[in-house]
């Protein structure tokens, strides 16, 4: 701290000579701050320039706290300086509460702007207002909004009706269109998201069903394609991923099967069939130990998996046959 800082300030001799455990320089610092608390702005309290950023205010606060917090002098005789320190600490904390909060800081900066700064911001404000006014007028002239609003409303009603009747694909389509025209509408955004989700789930379920049919008919390739479609519609459809892995395994495509098994596990880490699929793939890859582990985990999660039970038994006793 430079000596110039205290220029023109007269320290009281009694205060400087009070019998306390503080160095003279520290006393001066405290007395000087205490005397100016009411007069200083928050910026001056923290010793930072006007309009300094929040981070700077915070850093300055930490430095000041280290000088002015009463705990720094715990166990020392402080006399009248204790009350002064407490006052200064509260004042710097007050300054921090304003200047380290972006919203409050900006407002305070405006309120405490130096005159030339004040003129400049006022002028800018006027300019901004003029431009905003112009813009509003221009938009009013063109005004495509009115016709647009009606269209949005119509699409939304249609979408809602479709949603109620479980025609999810239709609903998703209408609501998506409407949302594109009015992206600010929260209700619409929520509805569209719901419709999209339901639509993809419905699609996935449909493909999954087809896949199961194909599988029942012995058409492994067809089943794989259907499961793949189901997954595309809903990447979190664990059952499809697991079935796809099985189908791919049947076709001898181990790498493909592996990627589906991984996808199934990712979508449903606690799903028995996902672990079962992984077990199947691992067995194909020749890793009997890991395969056994995966199947055991699968059965732990879902004890009804008869296939897994069979397979596990075979794996366990495989060395016999």
């Amino acid at each position, binding site marked *: 701290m430079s000596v110039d800082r205290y220029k023109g300030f007269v320290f009281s001799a009694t205060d400087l000579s009070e019998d306390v455990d503080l160095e003279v320089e520290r006393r001066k610092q405290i007395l000087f701050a205490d005397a100016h608390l009411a007069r200083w702005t928050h910026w001056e309290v923290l010793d930072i320039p006007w309009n300094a950023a929040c981070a700077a205010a*915070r*850093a300055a606060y*930490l*430095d000041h*706290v*280290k000088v002015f*917090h*009463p*705990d*720094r*002098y*715990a*166990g*020392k005789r402080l006399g009248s300086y204790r009350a002064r320190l*407490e006052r200064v*600490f*509260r004042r710097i*904390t007050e300054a921090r*509460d304003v200047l380290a*909060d972006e919203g409050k800081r900006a407002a305070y900066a405006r309120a405490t702007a130096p005159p030339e700064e004040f003129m400049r911001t006022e002028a800018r404000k006027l300019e901004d207002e003029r431009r905003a006014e112009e813009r509003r007028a221009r938009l009013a002239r063109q005004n495509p909004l009115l016709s647009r609003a009606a269209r949005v409303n119509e699409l939304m009603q249609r979408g809602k009706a479709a949603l109620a009747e479980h025609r999810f694909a239709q609903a998703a389509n209408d609501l998506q269109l409407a949302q594109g025209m009015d992206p600010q509408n929260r209700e619409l955004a929520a509805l569209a998201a719901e419709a999209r989700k339901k639509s993809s789930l419905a699609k996935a379920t449909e493909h999954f069903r087809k896949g199961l049919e194909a599988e029942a008919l012995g058409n492994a390739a067809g089943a794989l394609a259907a499961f793949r479609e189901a997954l595309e519609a809903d990447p979190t459809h664990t059952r499809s991923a697991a079935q796809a892995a099985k189908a791919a395994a049947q076709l001898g495509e181990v790498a493909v099967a592996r990627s589906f098994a991984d996808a199934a596990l990712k979508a449903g880490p606690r799903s028995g069939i996902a672990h079962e699929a992984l077990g199947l793939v691992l067995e194909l890859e020749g890793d009997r130990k890991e395969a056994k582990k995966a199947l055991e985990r699968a059965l732990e999660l879902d004890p009804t998996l008869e296939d897994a039970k069979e397979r596990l038994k075979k794996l366990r006793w495989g060395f016999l046959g």
Partner: protein
Amino acid sequence: MSDLDPVIGIDLGTTNSVVATVRDGVPRVIPNRSGQLLTPSIVAVAKNGKKLVGPLAKRQAITNAENTVFAAKRLIGRRWGSKEVEDARTVLPYRLVAGPEGNDVRVDLAGRVVSISEISALVLAELKADAEAWFGRPVKRAVVTVPAYFNDGQRQATRDAGKIAGLEVLRIINEPTSAALAYGFGKQMEKKVVVFDLGGGTFDVSILDIGKSVYDVVAVGGDTYLGGEDFDRRIMDWLTFGFAKENAGIDLRQDKMALQRLKDSAEKAKCELSGAPSASIHLPFLVAGADGKGALHLDKQLAREQLEELTKDLVERCIAVAEKTLKDAGVRPSQVGEVLLVGGMTRMPRVQKAVKEFFGREPCRGVHPEEVVALGAAIQAHALVEPSAKGEDVLLLDVTPQNLGLLVVGGYFQTVIPKNTTVPTNQTHLFTTVQDAQTSVRIAVLQGASERAIDNELLGEFILDGIRPARRGEVSIEVSFEISADGIVGVSARDVDTGQQQSITVTATSGLTEEELRRILDEQLDDLLERKATAGEFEEKRDRAQAIVQEMEALVPAVQEALERTRFGKDAVHKADGVLARVRAAIDARDVAALEREHEALDRTLQLFRGLAAQARLPQGK
């Protein structure tokens, strides 16, 4: 000076307490006299009228449930009739009664009514004695921790407990802040840290902005009635209902001893499930069967998934509190630089998973969750006693956990100091009279989050009189609020015109009055004297025993020589060894009765040794 006068940090927990200190610049936990780092926060009066604290009290809890007080922290500073106390009365095996003023909680312990502060004081005194045994000299000053969400009454009562225990409480600090302090000790860091502290009885979340060794608390939140004991209780309920179903409706809760055994095994099972997928609970001969059909046993398996299901809502409650606290602080989960897990309950995998999911980052578990709080308290105690000149010491800036304000017309609560204000702080507020010629005004000080005064905690009230009679609204009353670095509230009111002033330290409604405290302090002194008498007795016996042991050890070479040359059985040496070992153990355990018992055997052995040694010397002398 500081070398002669050690300071300690105490984590006064719901289930366990820990004492720590800083020695040679390193914070470390002080083991209790049984050699453990955790001391159970349990106080009991044994069947023979002896007062037991800590491990000894815990050991006899099952057979003496009615006179064993645990979880006193849940009651400290609480008001009689509050929901928390009513809940506690239904589940605690010991007897709660109202204080003399009818507004605080006392315990009926073997016929003597004791305040909760006294119970906690006994635990603190035990830890103090442990520390004194470890240092080998008296300990007078300590920093004690409390949950961040504790209100003024609870802090005040904790401070009183320290006083009763004969400790000068340097500072009451918040547990999460303390944990952060221990975490950051000796590291340079600039980041936002969230402390997630789920202990035995309370839950706290604190958000700190750490930089330049300043620990600046930005926001705190919590629930003073959510912790490990609630998890235990879920298991107990599950066991009792299951048992009632299987055994024709026998209600285990009617049997205090069975209840205590259930509690123990529930806690044990919970801990086991943090490391294993399932735990078995086996309690043979739990209760007598109906119509004298012999004893009934309890034998159950509890899977981790099942426990998670039983306690799902408790974990959800924790996360909801964390979410709200972050919002109060204006911090997004992604801005958090570290999440610290504190408290034994955070060992539960489901809790860790929930924290990880919410913050999107792996929480920090590098520290011992049960010990960090005490370590932080020790660091703060150290900094408050020996601030280093270079300024590299840590500095804590804590906040007030709840809004502080007044009751105003219409039953509303007017906040004067909002929560999350950095302490120490003060604030003044101007009020006016509401009636013509009003000469006195009642000022009720409250703490809480509700707009309606009645939903908040009443800290105290006082009356400012001697107001100049005037038309309503013409007289201004200035009320000043002050919150100390401990989080303790002081309020004063002043008539701006007349200068008439009143002030209170807000203690009246929860805990002990000033007089009572003084009386207890006197009594405690007597108590201390009494203890000193037995301590003196022990010292005397120990000195006597030690003198004998020393003499025997000096005789050993001669005795061995004699043995080599005589037919004296090696058996005798073994027996002598046994006696010595028992005496040493009795000295270590400060067990006066055992010393007394062994003394005779010791004397006999000494005579024997003397004889042998004399034999050994005789031929040489000739």
